[in-house]
């Protein structure tokens, strides 16, 4: 195939994926690496890429420490409670103590942040959320990243990370192809900061046909954060911790501002409050430490997101659906009505389109809610991602190996969805993690840790062959049939994605089975995944666009396999409402008050899983 090989050499910091994590990394790297070569490789266009491409109407992670609102440890306690205890509290504390610096700089850069006119502080939507006019959030942070970077390569689908041929388990850059020209791009770099995204579209979505694009997390979030890092041999953590979202039906419009700011609330199909009646049985399942309805108001502990989902799912299964959002009261206030609509236009325009199409005016009709298909990511109310080192002054020995946010692969750092155990980072926290990773990456280079990296011509040539293989498969197999997409020698990326989604849904706890799975189902699923892996070698791409979809599918596959392995390993139901292990329906702190850590052998593909200790922040007074 006549695609050129384009080599970018002598890079110090390579940012793979420039969403909020990657832009934070590129921006900050320039300060600590004045003369360092900083390069960005981005799958789309940095001005509108990643999960924030569409914009946001709130920043969900802001402490307000300077205004005496919250301390970093308050955030840690909140994230810990919401995730049923399973948080890397060193990383969460570290992110939280820096995040305000990012948010105030966004304001300096021109991001419109709403103010509380009385106090002069940012306008709060809830305890952690502040309200913004964030339509241009992404273009603004992209501008900052572009100012710092030496070069930005847009439209590069990074398929693999490069490994050092002279030292085992050390990073050496990345490779991919340009989705416009088809050319093969090689980035030789001393460090890589993986800012790629989490995974939508790995579980069968509720919507069918055209509507399959209206997923909660962006359809271009292809699990590449995990696909790239797992393939490089990085250890992963909490990959079983997929998230299910309660959202407006079909459009998946956000509910945060509705609950917190507009004070709307939910009811079942016959107009009743339904959550509390499920709580006593739920307390039995998870224990009083996690759901103590009698004392919850005294302890100021939030009811975890997953447990509220549990009540929702059970109420619908009991035949009292649909669950409605009661908007008719709040929307009588024209100011609140306007906020309700702005909220969608700022971050989920499709929900506004849907209400316009179905004549749903929330002033006169209470809209329906639904629970989504599961998603695998690490910055919302879930913490999937790589097992990363924390900062020196906070982390215990088990969590620290030299460089903040470095994975278990030397020189490979993470930010945003890529970092495991750090839920509730959201946009601002992901940007902050990128900044932390950038400073650490510069230090790693200055400490001489990246000296003597070699990349053999063979590694580069082999990866080139691997990347374009789906086009080769197509060319060879295509002429055996008259026309159409049914071929005995290959499947196309869409057919592969359909198979993955069905498999994940039925065996790994998707919406189609009410989020239920068990050991037997998981083992059957893994068997099918192993055969699927063979077919993935026969994926066919008709053109460069399909080649992009083929590689996204491969990244989604690696993500999914990891989810299967982790779900099988954790023999308990830690997050009822996210998923259930039918063969272990209780939360089991005696055996599973741990973080799960996996390693996939690069050569054999074999998985090994282990438990890692869980540390909690303990104060002298409160705990």
């Amino acid at each position, binding site marked *: 195939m006549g695609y050129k090989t384009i080599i970018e050499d002598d890079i110090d910091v390579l940012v793979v994926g420039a969403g909020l994590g990657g832009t934070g990394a590129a*921006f900050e790297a320039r300060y600590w690496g004045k003369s360092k070569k900083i390069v960005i490789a981005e799958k789309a266009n940095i001005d509108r890429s990643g999960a924030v491409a*569409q914009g946001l109407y709130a920043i969900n992670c802001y402490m307000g420490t300077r205004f005496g609102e919250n301390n970093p440890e308050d955030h840690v306690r909140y994230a810990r409670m919401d995730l049923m205890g399973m948080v890397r509290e060193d990383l969460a504390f570290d992110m939280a103590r820096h995040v305000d610096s990012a948010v105030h700089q966004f304001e300096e850069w021109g991001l419109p942040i709403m103010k509380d006119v009385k106090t002069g502080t940012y306008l709060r939507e809830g305890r952690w959320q502040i309200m913004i006019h964030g339509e241009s959030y992404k273009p603004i942070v992209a501008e900052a990243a572009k*100012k710092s970077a030496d070069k930005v390569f847009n439209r590069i689908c990074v398929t693999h990370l490069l490994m050092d041929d002279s030292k085992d388990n050390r990073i050496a850059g990345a490779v991919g192809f340009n989705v416009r020209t088809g050319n093969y791009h090689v980035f030789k770099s001393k460090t890589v900061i993986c800012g790629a995204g989490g995974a939508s579209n790995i579980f069968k979505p509720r919507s069918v046909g055209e509507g399959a694009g209206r997923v909660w997390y962006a359809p271009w979030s292809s699990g590449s954060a995990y696909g790239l890092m797992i393939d490089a041999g990085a250890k992963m953590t909490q990959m079983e911790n997929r998230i299910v979202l309660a959202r407006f039906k079909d459009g998946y419009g956000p509910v945060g501002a509705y609950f917190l700011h507009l004070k709307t609330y939910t009811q079942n199909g016959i107009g009743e409050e339904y959550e509390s009646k499920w709580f006593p049985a739920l307390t039995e399942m998870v224990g009083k430490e996690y759901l103590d309805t009698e004392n919850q108001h005294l302890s100021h502990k939030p009811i975890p997101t997953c447990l509220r989902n549990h009540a929702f799912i059970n109420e619908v299964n009991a035949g009292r659906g649909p669950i409605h959002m009661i908007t008719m009261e709040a929307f009588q206030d024209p100011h609140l009505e306007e906020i309700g609509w702005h909220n969608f236009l700022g971050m989920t325009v499709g929900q506004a389109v849907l209400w*316009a199409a179905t004549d749903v005016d929330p002033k006169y009709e209470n809209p329906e809610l639904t629970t989504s298909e599961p998603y695998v990511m690490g910055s919302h109310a879930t913490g999937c991602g790589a097992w990363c080192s924390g900062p020196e002054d906070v982390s215990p020995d088990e969590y620290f190996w030299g460089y903040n946010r470095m994975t278990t692969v030397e020189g490979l750092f993470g930010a945003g969805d890529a970092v495991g155990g750090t839920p509730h980072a959201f946009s601002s926290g992901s940007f902050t993690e990128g900044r932390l990773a950038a400073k650490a990456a510069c230090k790693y280079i200055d400490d001489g840790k990246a000296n003597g990296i070699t990349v053999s011509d063979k590694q580069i040539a082999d990866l080139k062959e691997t990347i374009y293989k789906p086009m080769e498969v197509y060319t060879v197999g295509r002429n055996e049939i008259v026309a159409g997409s049914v071929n005995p020698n290959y499947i196309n990326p869409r057919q592969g994605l359909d198979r993955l989604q069905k498999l994940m849904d039925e065996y790994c706890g998707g919406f189609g089975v009410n989020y239920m799975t068990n050991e037997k189902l998981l083992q059957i699923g893994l068997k099918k995944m192993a055969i699927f892996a063979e077919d993935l070698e026969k994926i066919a791409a008709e053109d460069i666009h399909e080649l992009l979809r083929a590689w996204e599918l491969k990244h989604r596959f690696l993500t999914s396999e990891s989810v299967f392995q982790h779900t099988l390993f954790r023999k308990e139901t830690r997050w009822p409402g996210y998923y259930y292990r039918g063969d272990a329906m209780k939360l089991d702190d005696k055996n599973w008050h741990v973080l799960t850590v996996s390693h996939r052998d690069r050569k054999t593909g074999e998985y090994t899983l282990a438990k890692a200790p869980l540390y909690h922040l303990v104060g002298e007074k409160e705990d």
Partner: protein
Amino acid sequence: MPTFVYMTRCDGCGQCVDICPSDIMHIDKTLRRAYNIEPNMCWECYSCVKACPHHAIDVRGYADFAPLGHSVRVHRDEEKGTIAWRIKFRNGKKDMELLAPITTKPWGTGIPQLADESAPAKDMVDSELLFNEPKYVAMNDNALPTLKSNGLTLKEGVYY
């Protein structure tokens, strides 16, 4: 929801192709105009709609759950720093116009060039501080919080 392109308005300039995060706006080789090649990978993020200089791109709700006959149009103006929306319901009963700011400063002027900042001193390099800190991260901008300053330790076990 999935985007489509009006034949008479598109001049094939390719702005939508350049910006689409999902790589689904492509130029038709015969007609030399843009179209959505993969509607089920469209997030209706409106990036292309906002970028089109001719307002040639619109959105028609997903066929599997959105009835025909609605409209959500947008005009984004970087110079004015605003975005203007118009929402029209299928039944014609609601027709809303909404305006929001997208920036508070002339485009790009508020962002520092970090290469021009003076190099960090060694004690800053060795600290846990990031660029511009401890500004904004603490009361009186005095110091970055640590476990010690906040009276905390990390302890293994079940503590809530």
